[in-house]
C-alpha cells in the first residue's frame, strides 16, 4: 500500500549550481502600495533568476510558462494570500493550487522566496529522490495543497476546497492558476459550472493568458475566444488584468470576492518567457532548456531591470 518507497534525497552537489536565492519574504505589514510593488518586482526578478538556474541545472523545465506566471505567484504568496509557514495548519488560511503544474519550478522558487521551503533545497530540483519533482506533489511538500501535472485537475480540486470553506463559513479564499490551453479540458468547464451555480465567491480562478500552449498558439490549436463570454456564461465574474503588473494584480486579488455570490475569473494577460527578449511570446520556449550563453544573456537582461 505504499505509494512510493520512502527514501532520503541524495543530491550530487556537482550536478547542481551553487547559485542561491535571496529570500525577501512577504511584503512588510504597513508597506505603502508603492513599496509593495517595488518589493514584488524585486522578488519576481530574483525568482526568475533562480528559476532560470534551476532549469539550466536540471536540464528540464517549462521556462516559458514559468516566466509568464511568476508575477502572479509572487503577488499571491508575498502579498495577497494570508498564508505563512506558521499558518500552514490554519483551516482559515488562503489556499493556492497551481493547476498548470508544469510550472513547478516557478512555484518552488516562489515558495522558497516566501519561506515555505529552505532556499538551498532548490538545488535538489529534479534530482534523484528530490521532493522537488517536475510537477508539485502534496505528499512531498507541506505547502503544496494539491498534486498537479495532468491539466484540468487543479480547478475541480479548488472548487472542492472552496466548497468546504463555504460549508464551514470560513473567510478563506481559494486561488487557482490554470493555463489558457489548459481550458480546452472539459473538466474545467464542469468545475466552473459547479462553482458558478453554487455561488463560490471565495474562489478566484486566475487564467495565465499567454496565448501559447505546448505546440502552437492557442488560437491556432483550439481557440478559446470569446473567452470572457464563455466564463460569464458559466457564471464567473470576469476581470481582465496585465499579468505582469504587480500593482494591478494586487488590487485585483485584494478585491476578491469581486462580486458577492459569484466566483472571480481573472484573465491575466501575460507573455510566455517574459521579459526575456528571445523567449518572450515564443512557443519554442514552452519547455526548451537554455544554453549557457542563453542563460548569461537572460541573466544580463534580468540584471538590467
Amino acid at each position: 500500500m505504499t505509494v512510493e518507497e520512502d527514501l532520503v534525497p541524495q543530491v550530487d552537489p556537482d550536478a547542481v549550481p551553487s547559485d542561491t536565492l535571496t529570500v525577501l519574504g512577504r511584503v512588510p505589514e504597513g508597506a505603502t502600495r508603492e513599496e509593495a510593488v517595488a518589493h514584488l518586482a524585486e522578488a519576481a526578478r530574483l525568482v526568475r533568476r533562480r528559476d532560470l538556474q534551476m532549469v539550466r541545472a536540471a536540464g528540464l523545465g517549462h521556462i516559458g510558462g514559468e516566466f509568464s506566471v511568476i508575477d502572479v505567484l509572487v503577488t499571491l504568496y508575498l502579498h495577497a494570500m494570508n498564508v505563512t509557514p506558521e499558518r500552514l495548519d490554519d483551516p482559515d488560511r488562503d489556499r493556492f493550487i497551481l493547476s498548470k503544474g508544469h510550472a513547478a519550478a516557478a512555484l518552488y522558487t516562489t515558495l522558497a522566496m516566501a519561506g515555505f521551503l529552505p532556499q538551498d533545497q532548490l538545488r535538489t530540483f529534479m534530482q534523484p529522490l528530490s521532493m522537488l519533482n517536475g510537477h508539485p506533489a502534496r505528499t512531498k511538500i507541506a505547502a503544496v495543497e494539491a498534486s498537479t501535472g495532468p491539466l484540468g485537475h487543479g480547478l475541480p480540486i479548488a472548487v472542492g476546497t472552496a466548497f468546504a470553506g463555504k460549508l464551514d463559513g470560513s473567510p478563506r479564499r481559494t486561488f487557482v492558476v490554470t493555463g489558457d490551453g489548459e481550458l480546452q479540458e472539459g473538466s474545467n468547464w464542469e468545475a466552473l459550472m459547479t462553482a458558478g451555480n453554487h455561488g463560490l465567491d471565495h474562489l478566484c480562478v486566475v487564467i495565465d493568458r499567454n496565448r501559447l500552449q505546448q505546440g502552437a498558439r492557442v488560437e491556432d490549436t483550439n481557440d478559446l475566444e470569446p473567452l470572457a463570454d464563455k466564463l460569464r456564461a458559466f457564471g464567473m465574474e470576469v476581470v481582465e488584468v496585465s499579468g505582469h503588473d504587480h500593482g494591478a494584480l494586487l488590487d485585483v486579488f485584494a478585491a476578491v470576492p469581486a462580486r458577492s455570490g459569484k466566483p472571480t475569473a481573472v484573465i491575466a494577460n501575460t507573455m510566455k518567457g517574459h521579459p526575456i527578449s528571445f523567449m518572450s511570446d515564443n512557443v519554442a520556449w514552452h519547455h526548451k532548456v537554455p544554453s549557457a550563453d542563453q542563460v548569461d544573456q537572460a541573466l544580463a537582461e534580468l540584471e538590467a531591470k
Partner: protein
Amino acid sequence: MSTTTAPAQVLHDCRDAWVATLIELAEADPRIVAVVNDSVGSSKLGPFQDRFGQRLVNVGIAEQDMVGVGAGLANGGKVPFVSAAACFLTARAMEQVKVDAAYSQHHMVLVGQSPGMAYGELGPTHHSIEDLAWLRVIPGLTVIAPCDPIETAQALRWAAAHHGPVFIRVARMGVPDVNAADYEFVPGKAVLLRPGSDVTLAATGTAVHRALDAAALLAAEGIDARVLSVPTISPLDTEAFVAAARETAGIVTAEEALTSGLGGAVAEALATRHPAPMRFIGATTFAPTGSVGWLMEHFGITGTGIAAAAKDLLGR
C-alpha cells in the same frame, strides 16, 4: 437469482446498509460529506440529503469534477464519500482516481455503486466488471468488495477513519447475510468461512455466498472445500493464499467482475510465493444482453459453476 441460492434466504441490497451507515457516520463526524453525480437516487442517498442537506454535494453528471471536488473537500478538511455508479466513477474519472485520490493520498472514500453486472440489461457500458482489475494495481489505493450488509457497513466505518484513499464496492444484486452479527472487518485480511482440505474456493463481494453454495454441493460429493471470503482485493492477504496453496489442491476464485480482478491478484501473489493450480470464475467478455441473474448464470458465477470449476481442478 442464482439457481443454487436456497429460496429461504432473504437477499439484501447493500445500498441500504451503505446509506444507513453513512448517516450514522455523518451524525458522529461533521466532516463527513457525500459527493454525487446526479446519483442521489441510484445511491439511495435520499434520506442522507433530507437529513444533511448542504453536506450532499451534487455536481451533476460530471464524474471528473466529482472526484476532483472530493479531493478538494478533503483538502478543505472534510471526509468525502464520493458515490456514483462504479462504471462511471472508475472509467470516466480514472485519472482523477489515480492522481487526485491515490497519488495524492487524500483521505477520501470512493464508493462504487451497483458494480459488476448489477445493471444487467443496460449492458457493458453500465457494467463495472473492470473496476477490480483496474483499481487493484493503483499504488496506495485500498480496494474493497464487501459480500453482505454487515461487511459493507464495517468497511465504510473503517474507511471513514483511515487516512488514505479507499475504493469500496456497494453491491446492488441481492446477497444474503454471510457474516455473523458480531463480524469485524479487518482490512487486508481474508475471512475463513469454511475450513476444508481438498480445494479452496476464494470469492469476493456477491460471489461469496455462491462459493458457500458450491462448497455445500461439493460436500455432497465428498469434496471438502475451504471457503475464503476476500473483502480486500488490494492489499491482498497473501499469507492466506500461500497457506491455501500449501494445504489444498488448488484455488478457484469467483467474482462478479473480470477474472483479472481477484483472480489475477491471487495468481500474481502465488506465482512468486507458491504456484498452485487455479480456476477463474467471473466475466471473460463484455456481456450480451440479459438480466444480472441471467448473466451470472451465463458466466457460471453460481454455486454450480464454481463447484464444476473445483471438480475440473481436482480432475473429478
